[in-house]
């Protein structure tokens, strides 16, 4: 298939305009000795029907999407209202670029402005940017931002922050002279305040914790925030499961200085992990140190309201190496989906969704931990994920579940050696009681 729109006659006319006889002449300034003198070794072109069937064939090699899954751990199955797919697939949203020319991009810009407002409302923070790549890199950007704001180089990270977020943070900070230490968790599954108090000092730029944390446990953010602020450090809260914000006290109301997170739960399918979006919100005093695109309301020459990208003096295209971040684009289309999702659900829908998550996860947790040989690992309250410990280890349970067409959960041992026989399970509003009962029944079969 070719997507070129010129006929052979038109090509010839254009070449005549340029005074050339061959398209090769256009490339005469390139060194001939390195010109590729053969065809690229890639398969011959496919027509549209061939292309579709070849991807259908590859797709059939994925068994997982057809299975009943209780996997979460940073990527959550949630309902997606049909209007999200319908509206976000409009070419006017899919095919423009970054709104550099605001007069020709008001749709994109107003959506960003609404998105920023929704993120501020949900997190209870002053300002939001137009989105970042994903939850993990957003957490890393938050660490760099805290370093810029505080001038300090030590970051404390709760051990219960998503392991991939921690890995990305380590990758980002290691060339910049920052150092990271972990803060332990207690038997409740929550951050250990004593360990935090021990490790926090005047050199600490920031403390990062996640709530609900990687174990699914809801942190006591008020308590952590008080300890952090007592030491003049910045309190950063990561929200990997933002559906929780429909119900739980937002980080901004608990003293967070920066809130960062993963927006996948808001209308974005699992997508094998990407694309999704990272969100970031902060107190307004940090505006000049904020990374990423930001949209602002303004007026046109007739006095009508309009929106523009603003504060570009923070950004790489103006400041070059002195910019707050190297990020250029945001994840605009994913942020559009999140905006449509949130505006469609509204406060009642989002709250109801969160309440269902709490109920269903707790229902599953109580049922599972009621089985002989299964124990709930942590005593802290959970949102839609929980950790259970299985006598004889998780692997044999997992194998049995897979044979029944169920993805039961994530084995924690590779990520947390201290949680050897444990698995992390996720239950959301998409799981029916019948499906949960199935899971419990099959687990019981193994342990009987």
């Amino acid at each position: 298939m070719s997507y070129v729109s010129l006929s052979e006659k038109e090509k010839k006319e254009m070449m005549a305009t340029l005074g050339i006889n061959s398209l090769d002449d256009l490339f005469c300034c390139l060194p001939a000795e390195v010109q590729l003198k053969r065809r690229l070794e890639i398969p011959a072109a496919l027509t549209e029907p061939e292309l579709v069937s070849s991807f259908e064939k590859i797709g059939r090699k994925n068994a997982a999407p057809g299975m009943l899954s209780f996997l979460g751990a940073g990527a959550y199955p949630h309902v997606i209202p049909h209007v999200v797919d319908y509206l976000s697939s409009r070419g006017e949203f899919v095919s423009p670029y970054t709104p550099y020319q605001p007069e020709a991009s008001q749709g994109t810009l107003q959506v960003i402005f609404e998105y920023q407002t929704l993120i501020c409302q949900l997190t209870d923070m002053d300002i939001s940017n137009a989105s970042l790549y994903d939850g993990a890199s957003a957490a890393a950007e938050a660490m760099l931002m805290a370093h810029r704001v505080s001038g300090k180089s030590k970051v404390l990270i709760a051990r219960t922050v998503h392991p991939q977020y921690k890995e990305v943070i380590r990758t980002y900070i290691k060339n910049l002279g920052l150092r990271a230490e972990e803060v332990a968790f207690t038997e409740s599954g929550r951050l250990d305040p004593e360990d935090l108090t021990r490790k926090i000092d005047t050199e600490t730029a920031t403390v990062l914790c996640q709530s609900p944390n990687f174990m699914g446990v809801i942190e006591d953010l008020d308590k952590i925030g008080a300890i952090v602020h007592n030491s003049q450090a910045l309190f950063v809260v990561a929200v990997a499961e933002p559906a929780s914000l429909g119900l739980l006290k937002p980080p901004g109301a608990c003293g967070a200085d920066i809130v960062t997170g993963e927006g996948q739960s808001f209308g974005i399918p699992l997508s094998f992990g990407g694309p999704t979006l990272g969100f970031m919100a902060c107190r307004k005093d940090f505006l000049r140190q904020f990374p990423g695109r930001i949209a602002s309301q303004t007026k046109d020459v007739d006095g009508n309201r309009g929106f523009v990208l603003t504060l570009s003096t923070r950004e790489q295209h103006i400041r070059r190496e002195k910019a707050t971040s190297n990020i250029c684009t945001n994840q605009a289309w994913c942020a559009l989906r999140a905006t449509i999702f949130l505006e469609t659900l509204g406060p009642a829908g989002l709250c109801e969704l969160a309440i269902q998550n709490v109920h269903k996860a707790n229902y599953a947790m109580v049922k599972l931990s009621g089985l002989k040989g299964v124990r709930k690992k942590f005593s802290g309250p959970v949102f839609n994920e929980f950790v259970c410990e299985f006598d004889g280890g998780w692997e044999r349970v997992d194998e049995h579940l897979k044979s029944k067409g169920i993805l039961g959960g994530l084995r924690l041992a590779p990520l947390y050696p201290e949680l050897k026989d444990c698995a992390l399970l996720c239950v959301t509003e998409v799981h029916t009681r019948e499906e949960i009962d199935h899971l419990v029944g099959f687990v019981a079969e193994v342990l009987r």
Partner: protein
Amino acid sequence: MIREPLIFEISARGKRAFVLPKLDVPEDKDLLKGLPLRDEIRGFPEVSEVEVVRHFTRLSQTNYCVDTTFYPLGSCTMKYSPKVNEKVAAMESFLFSHPYAPEELVQGNLEILKTTEDMLGEITGMDAFTLQPSAGAQGELVGMMIIRAFLEKRGDARQVVLIPDSAHGTNPSSAHICGYRVEEIKSNEKGTIDLASLDRAMTERVAALMITNPNTLGIFESDILKIAEIVHARGGLLYMDGANLNALVGRFRPGDMGVDVIHLNLHKTFSTPHGGGGPGAGPVGVKKELAAHLPIPVIVKSEQGYALNFDLPLSVGRVRSFFGNFLVIVKALAYVLSLGPEGLKEVADVAVLNANYIRKSLENVYHLKYTTSTLHECVFSDKFQKEHGVQNIDIAKRLIDFGVHPPTMSFPLIVPGALMIEPTETESKRDLDTFIEAMKKIAREAAEMPAVVKTAPHTSYVRRLDETTAARNPILRWEGKIKE
């Protein structure tokens, strides 16, 4: 004209656009009692479904986009995005794949990733690829990290990265975030890297030279082989920003020209839609000496199938969660497979033909600071029009009245009043001619009735917006109250 309100302004208490199925497990009020609960979400919108649909449909209609108009935004490669690629990426087997699903149950996804890596390797002449970076800028950062890890392993930590003054702003910023000091290389009168300056600057402190080729003027660095030789002779590495690969694909391969590390933008050369500013993808390709430093995980193929390898002690680490922007990668692979080798070569041929046709047609109408021949884009300036008080921003805004998205403005920085035009290969001659006529008309207007240009746009949804006030007193969120 109907002005679309903010969703918050049409919201009213109690309206719903979506209802969940009833809770089917026993309700337990005590469950919530133990949790830190929030107050109501202040200001959150409550609307009906039809209101949501009309709101976003109307907003969409105020956007200029590739599906409706010529969009010659230079350096951004705003080519048409084939629709079948959207369909392929929306197949349930990809859409509903959990990233923590066991390897043996997502073999199709791993096959897609590995196949894409291999094809990008063949197209660019590089030995190994990572698809993890989420965007071009993150690709640059990963590329810099790989260079740093490689040099440190060699016991030769260096401090400086050289970057030409014509480079995209993300280049110096990415090098800086990788802990490097940036030194600028001045362009010569041809618009390319000055070999003498490079020769002076390229010392043992320099880790890498970061070039864009063709550069942001659309000019190919014809001394590329000498450049590579100078950099390599002093122990440095050559990084190439592959943003402009569209000009070369199928004809020239960066890996054959001495490039050690490259990032690509799948949303440029490989047609994945720009989405209003993301998601894109910024794969990084390296020569084999550097492959040990690629981010984890790396996909390996064996007789048992595809697997993920996390055990790479020299890896720079992970740069984002999971496997990158997977669905974007699916679309890029679909694009490569539908074009095939001949189709990819035609991309470069026609992209360069279209750009040169525009350049030739406008070269006496708008000023060309650099007259060196160009490939896929050309950079004019407003020098002639400035004599009448008309600047590049005015020309750009006036184009909106002609139904065309403006070119990239004021970049690269070495061309004052720049208008950077990249038509891509997918545009018809008719669309090119319409654009050329509009540009000529605007030039005439600038001379004869400059006020019309200086007050443009006249017909758009909003007229010229006050960006200065926005920067001085930004309003970054809606602060009103929802109607009862």
